[in-house]
């Protein structure tokens, strides 16, 4: 029998039709929508005079531009309010399940999907948001789509896609102390560049990946898009099943056993061929941070920013432009640089495990004077757990400001903006120019590193604070 990869198994079983010399007609099991990329899709449906084909396969939540304070009140920003109201109206009209502001499962779409147990192994999942790749952590094919495709899924539950190439990235060995899954992915992207996986779908494998919790796996899959990949996935295993068991939408009773039996078949056959493979050693990975304006511009916290040596033409110009934006010099160390803001949140690192890590680190300590520290849970559920576990108290005593769930300063569509010229060390996934507000300077790092920065006020290797 032909040896196939996990990706092939799921992809091939969702192809409704192969278009000759064209893309595949690809069936979508679950579709998530939010307020920003869906309104025009609904508008176009109306113009065409058609409805939503399978409303129960779509789930909605407003997350991108919602305020993170006073969520029980009317949204002040007129345009944001209009988008949220449109989402409500469309969900009502077409019978789509909505997790609205203030309800028990409101939150960032990529945080609530897994929490509700909607995200399951073997599924195809799309959303008009590139970080849909997060759901790949469960052994699903999940990727971001544009608004035209949102419209296609609403109208037909299918999109037209050419099958991407396959890449496997294996990380073997044990992670060192103070090294997290965020460091793994920042390390990988720094090695293969922000465009290095364009055209590919990535499977993450190896003992270092298998040892990770679901939350940590989601962090890795989340950032697949930051190296250009369409998405990333990890074969489901006991960790996956244990996470899912008992969740609202997870299979129950007899169905559970059947589902697990199927999920266990979802893995790459030994000897299956990938178009490209990378191997990394977990022992080489240390706490990472970005110094530039794309996620591929990452270094170990203890290292120096590279020099422009060896770069030419537009490569060199882009590198220098990026450093100029950040206010850094080629070749200088980042450690010790003063920071103004820290942000813990987003669909990359806004889950309970991340908040636990930060709380554990700052327990009994105080944030530095020069730091404004925001912590924004990825969902109401995370927020609730953080309260119940006493984490909120610890964080507030350390001087962190807790906000309500949403995307917040990850993309600064709401009021949570980093002022121009200020430095933010952030657990989110993008350090593009202006991502966290016009002129904001973002450095991406793990929740642990962010906690260390909050306490010292400067770029710090978390392991050095541990040791004291």
């Amino acid at each position, binding site marked *: 029998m032909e040896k196939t990869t996990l990706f092939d198994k799921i992809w091939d079983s969702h192809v409704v039709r192969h278009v000759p010399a064209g893309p595949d007609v690809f069936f979508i099991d679950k579709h998530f929508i939010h307020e920003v990329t869906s309104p025009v899709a609904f508008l176009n449906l109306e113009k065409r005079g058609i409805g939503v084909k399978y409303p129960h396969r779509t789930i909605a939540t407003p997350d991108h531009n919602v305020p993170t304070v006073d969520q029980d009140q009317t949204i002040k920003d007129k345009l944001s309010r209009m988008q949220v109201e449109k989402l409500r109206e469309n969900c009502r009209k077409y019978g789509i399940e909505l997790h609205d502001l203030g309800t028990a499962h409101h939150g960032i779409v990529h945080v609530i999907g897994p929490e509700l147990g909607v995200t399951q192994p073997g599924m195809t999942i799309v959303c008009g948001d590139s970080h849909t790749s997060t759901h790949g952590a469960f052994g699903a094919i999940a990727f971001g789509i544009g608004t035209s495709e949102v419209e296609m899924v609403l109208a037909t539950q299918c999109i037209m896609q050419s099958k991407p190439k396959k890449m496997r990235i294996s990380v073997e060995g044990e992670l060192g102390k103070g090294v997290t899954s965020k460091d793994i992915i920042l390390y990988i992207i720094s090695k293969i560049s922000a*465009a290095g996986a364009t055209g590919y779908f990535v499977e993450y494998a190896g003992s270092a990946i298998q040892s990770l919790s679901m939350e940590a796996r989601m962090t890795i899959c989340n950032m697949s898009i930051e190296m*250009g990949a369409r998405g990333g996935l990890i074969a489901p295993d006991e960790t996956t099943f244990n996470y899912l068991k008992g969740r609202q939408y997870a299979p129950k009773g007899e169905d559970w056993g059947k589902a697990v039996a199927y999920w266990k078949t979802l893995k790459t056959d030994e000897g299956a061929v990938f178009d490209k493979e990378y191997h990394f050693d977990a022992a080489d990975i240390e706490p990472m941070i970005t110094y530039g304006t794309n996620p591929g511009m990452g270094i170990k916290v203890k290292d120096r920013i590279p020099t422009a040596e060896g770069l030419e033409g537009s490569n060199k*110009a882009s590198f220098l432009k990026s450093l100029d934006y950040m206010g850094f010099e080629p070749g200088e160390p980042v450690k010790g640089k003063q920071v103004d803001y820290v942000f813990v949140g987003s669909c990359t690192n806004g889950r309970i495990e991340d908040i636990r890590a930060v709380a554990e680190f700052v327990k009994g300590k105080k944030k530095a004077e020069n730091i404004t520290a925001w912590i924004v849970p990825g969902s109401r559920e995370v927020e609730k757990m953080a309260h119940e576990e006493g984490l909120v108290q610890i964080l507030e005593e350390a001087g962190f400001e807790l906000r309500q769930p949403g995307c917040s300063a990850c*993309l600064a569509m709401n009021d949570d903006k980093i002022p121009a010229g200020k430095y933010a060390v952030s657990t989110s996934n993008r350090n593009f120019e202006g991502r966290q507000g016009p002129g904001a300077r973002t450095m991406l790092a793990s929740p642990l590193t962010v906690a260390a920065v909050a306490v010292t006020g400067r770029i710090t290797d978390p392991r050095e604070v541990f040791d004291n």
Partner: protein
Amino acid sequence: MAYDKFTVLRDTAVPLPTENVDTDQIIPARFLKATERTGFGDNLFRDWRYDVEGNPKKDFVLNDPTYSGKILVAGKNFGSGSSREHAVWALYDYGFRCVVSSFFADIFKNNCLNIGVLPVTVSPEFADKLFAAIEADPKTEIEVNLPEQKITLLSTGEFETFDINEYKKSNMQNGFDDIDYLLNMSDEIEAFAASR
């Protein structure tokens, strides 16, 4: 939605050699709050085009009257980052019908094809030639021929052919979109959905 048909486009071009231009630069998130698909062109490259007071930045290419045209020649890895189709809407709304680069981000390229902006991938060498020719003479014309899958620098006659899959090509030439195709096969989709 159906869009303008694309066959042969002959025009001057705007050069933007910067690499890794991400979708947050093409259209910053704070301009994504509309519930309709109009007016995005005004905010195309907003933070590179205007300063915080809203005054045009002289050194940015879109503010330089020397350059114009429906073709944008862009640096490597254009359109990385977000899936926001608003980035393509902004390009389209501003007046671009074709983007040329030696490398495109995936979702961006898909989005282009879905709304009728033709992404043309050329070799890095050809991209450099285009940049040099436009810089030497901003009035230099480029011809993008979709039926022949060919891009030509008209001043010298140098050309390259480019890839596009047959299905997408015929969609672009006819101004069709995927939904038209999918709606025509609803029975097949329904049967498939029922089996899941």
